[in-house]
C-alpha cells in the first residue's frame, strides 16, 4: 500500500499558459526517501504542493487526477487535514514561522492535530533535541538567524513524527555543515521513525547518497524514476545538467556513476584509480596558475604595481549590547580578482559585504575601495520597484546581463523568472557599464545562487567572469565557488581562518570542499570533475609509464 500515490495528475496554475504538472503518476511506499530532481520551473515545487494539498485547494487552477496521501484523497481533504499526516517545509523559513517563540512554533502543528498537552510537550522536546535547538526554545522567532529559523521550521515539520515529510529545497539557506547535518537528520527520521521523506533539491550531490529513489521532472512530467545510481546513469545520457560532480568525474574516467562520496571513492578504488587506504594522488605538474593571493601579499608589502580594489584594515564590528560580528578583519582584494567568502551561517560574511558597500560602518578599523562598490543582496526582488524592466536599469546595464532588447524592456520585473530577476537586480547595482567613470571597482554578491539550478549557476559564473571588476561573492556553495573564484576566504566567528587560492582552501577541508575534492581526498587540489579527471589521467599515465 503506497503512502503517497498520484494518479494521472495534471495541474495548471490560474492564468498560466502551460500546465505545471502533466499526467504525473507516482507511488511512494512507506519509509522511502525520495529525491525530486529537475531544473528551475520543472514542476518540483508544484508536485510537493500537490502532495501537501495546497494544490489545488490553496492555489486554485485546473486540476485533474487524484493525489492520495496516507489514505486521504486531496480532492476530499484540504491541506489542514492532510497536515495531520504530512509535515511540510518550504524554501523560505521567514514566512513559515507563524508564532512568536520557538517553543510555540514547534507546538503549533501538534496542537492543530488535536494532540493532548502531554503529547504536545513531548513532541516539542523530541523535535528540539533532534535538531539541537533546545537552547532556542524560549527565544523569540524574530531574533533568530536564517539558519536557526530554517532549523526551527524543520523542527515544526518533523514534530510529532508525521508519516510523510515534504521538503522543498530545505538546505538552500544553510551552510554546507548545517546542510549535511540536515540530510543526516532526515535519513535518521527515515530510518528510526519510518517516515516517508520527499525532498526536492538542486544540490543533488548533497542528498543522493542518502536517497532510496530519485524522481526527475522536466516540463511538469516525470522523465526518470529510478534508484540514485540508475538516475545518474540516465542523467549522463539524457540530462547532463542533473549529474552530480562526482558522477561527472566518474563518467570522465570511464566508470559507472555512483551516488555519494563513499561509493564514488570505492568505484575509483576498485578500478585502481585511487590508491587503497589513502588518497595521496600526486600533484599535477605544469605551470602554476597565477596566484592572486601572492599578488595580494605583494601589494601589502608595497611591491605590487596596482593598488587594491578593496581593503579591510583591522575591521571590527561590535554590537552595542552583543558580540563582535567582525573581529580584526584585514583583507585586500586586487582589481579584477574573483573572491569567494565562505563560512557557516552567522560567520560574518553578509556583514563584511555590507561594510564593503558602506551600508554598515566598522566600529574599529577602516574599509577603503578604489571606486564604487556595487552590492547585490540576497533577495533580488527587493531591488525591483518599477513597472517595466526598462525603467529599472539603463539599456547599457541590461546588455551585459543578457536582458537587452524590446522583449525584456516592456515586461514587468516581477513577472521575470528567478534567474532573470537576479540578472536584472545585478544590472541595477552595476549601473551603466559603458561609462568607465560609473563602472564599479568592486561587485559584491550575497548568496546569489540560492535556489538556482546548475545551468543558471554556470550562467552567473560566466557573467561575473566578464565584468572586468573585482568580484566578492558570499556563498555556501563550494561547487559555485570552485567554478567562479580564484581565491577563497573562509570566515569563522567574524574572522578569516583560511585565505588562499580556491584549490588550496576548497580541497583541504571536508565540509567546505567540492564533491570532487571530497572523493579525491583533496589530492592535487582538484576541485572540478574536469580537474579530477585530468589528475586521475595523469596518475594513470604515470603508472603506465612506470610499468613500461
Amino acid at each position, binding site marked *: 500500500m503506497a503512502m503517497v500515490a498520484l494518479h494521472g495528475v495534471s495541474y495548471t496554475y490560474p492564468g498560466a499558459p502551460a500546465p505545471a504538472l502533466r499526467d504525473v503518476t507516482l507511488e511512494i511506499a512507506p519509509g522511502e526517501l525520495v529525491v525530486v530532481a529537475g531544473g528551475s520551473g520543472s514542476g518540483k515545487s508544484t508536485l510537493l504542493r500537490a502532495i*501537501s*494539498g*495546497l494544490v489545488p*485547494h*490553496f492555489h486554485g487552477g485546473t486540476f485533474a487526477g487524484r493525489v492520495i496521501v496516507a489514505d486521504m484523497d486531496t480532492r476530499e481533504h*484540504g*491541506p*489542514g*487535514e*492532510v*497536515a*495531520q499526516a*504530512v509535515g*511540510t517545509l*518550504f524554501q*523560505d523559513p*521567514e*514566512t*513559515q*514561522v*507563524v*508564532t*512568536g*517563540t520557538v517553543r*510555540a512554533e514547534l507546538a*503549533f*502543528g501538534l*496542537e*492543530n*492535530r*488535536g*494532540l*493532548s*498537552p*502531554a503529547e*504536545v*510537550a513531548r513532541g516539542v522536546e523530541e523535535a528540539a533535541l533532534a535538531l539541537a535547538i533546545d537552547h532556542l526554545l*524560549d527565544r*523569540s*522567532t*524574530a531574533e533568530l538567524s536564517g539558519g536557526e529559523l530554517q532549523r526551527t521550521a524543520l523542527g*515544526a515539520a518533523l514534530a510529532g513524527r508525521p508519516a510523510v515529510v515534504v521538503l522543498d529545497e530545505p538546505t538552500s539557506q544553510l551552510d554546507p555543515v548545517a546542510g549535511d547535518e540536515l540530510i543526516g537528520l532526515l535519513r535518521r527520521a527515515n530510518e528510526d521513525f519510518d517516515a516517508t521523506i520527499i525532498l526536492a533539491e538542486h544540490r543533488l550531490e548533497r542528498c543522493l547518497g542518502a536517497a532510496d529513489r530519485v524522481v526527475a521532472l522536466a516540463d511538469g512530467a516525470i522523465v526518470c524514476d529510478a534508484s540514485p545510481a540508475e538516475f545518474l546513469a540516465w542523467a549522463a545520457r539524457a540530462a547532463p545538467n542533473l549529474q552530480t560532480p562526482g558522477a561527472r568525474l566518474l563518467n570522465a574516467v570511464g566508470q559507472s556513476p555512483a551516488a555519494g562520496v563513499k561509493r564514488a571513492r570505492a568505484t575509483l578504488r576498485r578500478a585502481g584509480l585511487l590508491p587503497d587506504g589513502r588518497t595521496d594522488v600526486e600533484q599535477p605538474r605544469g605551470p602554476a596558475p597565477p596566484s592572486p593571493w601572492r599578488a595580494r601579499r605583494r601589494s601589502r608589502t608595497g611591491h605590487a604595481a596596482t593598488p587594491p580594489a578593496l581593503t579591510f584594515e583591522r575591521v571590527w564590528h561590535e554590537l552595542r549590547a552583543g558580540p563582535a560580528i567582525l573581529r580584526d578583519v584585514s583583507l585586500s582584494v586586487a582589481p579584477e580578482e574573483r573572491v569567494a567568502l565562505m563560512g557557516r551561517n552567522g560567520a560574518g560574511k553578509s556583514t563584511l559585504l*555590507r561594510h564593503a558597500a558602506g*551600508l554598515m560602518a566598522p566600529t574599529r578599523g577602516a574599509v577603503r575601495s578604489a571606486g*564604487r562598490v*556595487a*552590492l*547585490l*543582496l540576497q*533577495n533580488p*526582488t*527587493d*531591488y*525591483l*520597484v*518599477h513597472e517595466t524592466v526598462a525603467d529599472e536599469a539603463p539599456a547599457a546595464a541590461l546588455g551585459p546581463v543578457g536582458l537587452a532588447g524590446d522583449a525584456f524592456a516592456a515586461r514587468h520585473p*516581477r513577472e521575470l523568472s528567478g534567474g532573470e530577476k537576479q540578472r536584472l537586480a545585478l544590472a541595477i*547595482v552595476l*549601473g551603466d557599464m559603458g561609462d568607465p567613470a*560609473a563602472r564599479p571597482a568592486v561587485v559584491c554578491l550575497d548568496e546569489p545562487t540560492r535556489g538556482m539550478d546548475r545551468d543558471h549557476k554556470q550562467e552567473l559564473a560566466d557573467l561575473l567572469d566578464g565584468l572586468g571588476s573585482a568580484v566578492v561573492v558570499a556563498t555556501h556553495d563550494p561547487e559555485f565557488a570552485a567554478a567562479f573564484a580564484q581565491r577563497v576566504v573562509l570566515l569563522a566567528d567574524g574572522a578569516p581562518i583560511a585565505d588562499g587560492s580556491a584549490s588550496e582552501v576548497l580541497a583541504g577541508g571536508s565540509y567546505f570542499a567540492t564533491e570532487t575534492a571530497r572523493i579525491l581526498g583533496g589530492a592535487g587540489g582538484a576541485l572540478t570533475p574536469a580537474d579530477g579527471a585530468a589528475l586521475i589521467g595523469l596518475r594513470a599515465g604515470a603508472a603506465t609509464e612506470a610499468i613500461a
Partner: protein
Amino acid sequence: MIYRRRASPLHAARAAAGCAYCLALAIATLMASNPIILGAVTVAVLAAGAAAGVGRPLCRAALWGLPVAAAIMLVNALVTRDGLTVIVRLGNVPVLGHTDVTLEATVYGAILGLRAVALILCGLLYTLAVDPDEVLRLFRRVSFHSALTATLATRMVPILVRDGRRLAEAQRCRPGPPPSRLALMRAACTGVLDRALDVAAALEVRGYGAARRPPPYRGGVGSYSRHDAAFLASAVALVAVSVVARVDPAAAFAAYPSLRLTAGPGALLLAAALVVAALLPFADRRGL
C-alpha cells in the same frame, strides 16, 4: 516593541491572567474621573511595567504620549463651552466662533489626555508582557476566524518590518537617484500581498484549518500557578477598587460647571489601594 519572555511574575503568569490584569488596569483607567485616582492608575501601570522589566519602553511611550495629551487638552479647551472660570478670551475665532477658554474645560481636557496616555500604556504593557501566541490560542477556542486573522496580522508585522529594512537597504545599493516614494510604496504593497499569501500557505500546511479544537495550553493544568492566581486576584481587586472610587463620594470629582475635587484621606486611600493592588503580584518572584 514586541513580546519577549522575561523573568518577571507577569511574564510567568498564563495569558488569561495577564490579559485580565491588563484589562483591569484599562477598566480602572476608564472609570477613574478623579485626577488623583487617574494619576494613581498611571503610576501603577508604569510601576508594573518597571517590575515586569519593560519600564523603559513604557516610559518612552509615556513621553511620546505627552504631545497627544497636550493636543487633547487644547482641543477640549477650545471646543467646550462649559465651565464658569474664563481664563482666556479669544473672541471670534474662524470655524470655532466666539471662544472663551475656561479653567474647567482645560483641566478636564488634561484629564482626558492623561486617560489616553494611561490607556496607551495599558495596551503597551499587554503587548510587551503577555505572550501573543497564548492569547491567540485562547481566542481560537472562542472564534476560529478572528484568531486566524489575528494570527496572520501579528505574524505579518515582524515579517514586514524585516522586508521594509531589506527594501531600504536594497535601495541604498542603487546607483543614481533613488526611486520615487510612489514606486517604493507600490513595491512594498506588492510585497505585502506576496508575503501574506506565503504566510497563509504556511498556516494551511501546519494544520491551522484542520478545525480540530485545540487543547488547553499548559498541559491543561487545573491548578493555577501562584502568579496566575496573584494576577487574577489583582485584576478583581483593581476592578473592585475602581468601582468603589467611582461611586464613593470620598473620591468625587466634577469638572463642570466649576471644578469640584475631593482630595481627602478617602481619595488618597483609594489611590493607594489601587497602586498596592496593581503591584502586589510582583512581590512574589518565586518560580519565574
